[in-house]
């Protein structure tokens, strides 16, 4: 589909988006881990180039029931290359298909998930970041990047953030929505301090290693429904471990974890703070204040209630119109289209904030 044709799609007239859009979740992918070899020094390079070399990050335990697997079916590439590994296809299907002014690349490469050989994980993070700059950011000014880190060594992760933080297209540090640890605990402070020092946001996104509150349930549909628990747990951890008290300028974004649970979580955070504040007296304000001021959320996957007006009611109940930022999640199967995902129940000025203004402000893009 040509870009003009794509932009001119007109399903029922109301759907077209002509104003600029910022997409905060686009996944650039390696074709294979061997692409990182040129960016690795020994002893790490041969760890992936040798026969029986490292095969990559932890695999996903579920088989995909979707028609295109993890990807939307029309994003699947020939010859077995992972969807999202082609800049040209991404440009055609996202950047040029809609008026995308900026797209924030979030990868899916999380060395934090490597539970072993932390020095190797550190080397992989740096190699990935250099690969990202060379193969994506240099190709298109619309693309913005996220830094991969190995959070298991927070001081080293901080140095990696310092190394790349001044790149004008780098806007974010990516962390896994992990179920293995609370990343708000003091141990990880150097990482968040580096993000603030470099004026970068910190994004949380699920990975192959994200488990639910009951581990890995039998079916993918269960996993996919339940994983917002992990973003909630990480958000709770950031608040009550005092991360926002120590770093009032920290900006955190919860990507692809849903957002309609936010009103009830804010209530529960504040209720428990009223009761149990004495345990964490370093937290000096009502928890919901930190969330509203310091935390953003991606819109995708947009919920689909029977009455779309309920979705807007949930949005209003959050108590801020600045928290939600549009995302496609390209190339994945649950892609949200900027011209269709936000129901008409959202007033035009609010749609504009979600599609553009909120991300422009949050990521300081203007």
């Amino acid at each position, binding site marked *: 589909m040509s870009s003009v044709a794509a932009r001119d799609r007109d399903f029922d007239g109301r759907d077209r988006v002509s104003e600029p859009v910022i997409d905060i979740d686009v996944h650039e992918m390696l074709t294979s881990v061997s692409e990182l070899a040129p960016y690795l020094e020994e002893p790490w390079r041969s760890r992936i180039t040798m026969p029986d070399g490292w095969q990559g990050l932890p695999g996903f335990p579920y088989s995909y029931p979707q028609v295109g697997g993890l990807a939307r079916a029309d994003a699947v590439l020939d010859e077995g290359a992972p969807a999202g590994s082609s800049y040209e296809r991404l440009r055609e299907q996202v950047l040029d298909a809609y008026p995308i002014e900026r797209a924030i690349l979030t990868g899916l490469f999380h060395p934090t998930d490597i539970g072993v050989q932390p020095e190797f994980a550190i080397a992989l993070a740096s190699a990935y970041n250099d690969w990202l700059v060379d193969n994506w950011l240099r190709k298109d000014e619309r693309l913005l990047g996220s830094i991969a880190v190995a959070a298991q060594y927070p001081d080293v992760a901080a140095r990696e953030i310092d190394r790349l933080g001044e790149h004008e297209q780098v806007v974010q540090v990516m962390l896994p929505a992990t179920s293995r640890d609370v990343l708000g605990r003091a141990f990880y402070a150097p990482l968040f301090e580096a993000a603030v020092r470099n004026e970068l946001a910190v994004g949380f996104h699920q990975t192959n290693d994200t488990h639910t509150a009951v581990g890995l349930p039998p079916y993918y549909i269960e996993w996919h429904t339940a994983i917002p628990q992990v973003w909630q747990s990480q958000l709770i951890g950031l608040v009550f471990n005092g991360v926002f008290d120590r770093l009032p300028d920290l900006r955190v974004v919860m990507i692809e974890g849903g957002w309609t649970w936010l009103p009830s979580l804010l209530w529960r955070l504040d209720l428990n703070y009223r009761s149990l504040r004495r345990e964490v007296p*370093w937290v000096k304000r*009502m928890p919901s204040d930190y969330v509203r001021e310091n935390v953003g959320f991606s819109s995708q996957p947009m919920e689909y209630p029977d009455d779309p007006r309920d979705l807007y009611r949930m949005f209003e109940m959050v108590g801020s119109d600045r928290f939600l930022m549009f995302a496609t999640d390209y190339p994945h199967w649950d892609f949200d289209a900027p011209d269709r995902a936000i129901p008409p129940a959202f007033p035009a000025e609010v749609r504009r904030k979600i599609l553009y203004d909120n991300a422009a402000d949050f990521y300081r893009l203007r």
Partner: protein
Amino acid sequence: MGERHVLCGLRELQPGDFRVVSVGSRELLIVRTGEESFAAVPNICPHQGARLSNGRVERIWTAGDGRVHEPLERFAVVCPWHNFEFDLSTGCPPYAAGERCRPRLRCQAVLVEGEDVVLYT
């Protein structure tokens, strides 16, 4: 000035100690909050009605950058049921002022007159 009620003697309570006093049909919690300062609040939690005297009066906890618990000079009463805290200098939760001050405990004006701690109704 209305009817004078002697709540307790100035030196009957140590800072942080409290006593329950009936004033008319109301039960008040009287807390010594300083050398010559006292708080008088209804002995019923505005949240769900527990008797505050079954809870605890303590200095309000805070913490510095080192995340070590440090007591403030001010006292709070902690409800026995849900552990809601009320700053006895304001009646508000210690961390919430203005619109976020809820639930609020209505502090009564208490005077020290000679050796008496008194309330006028």
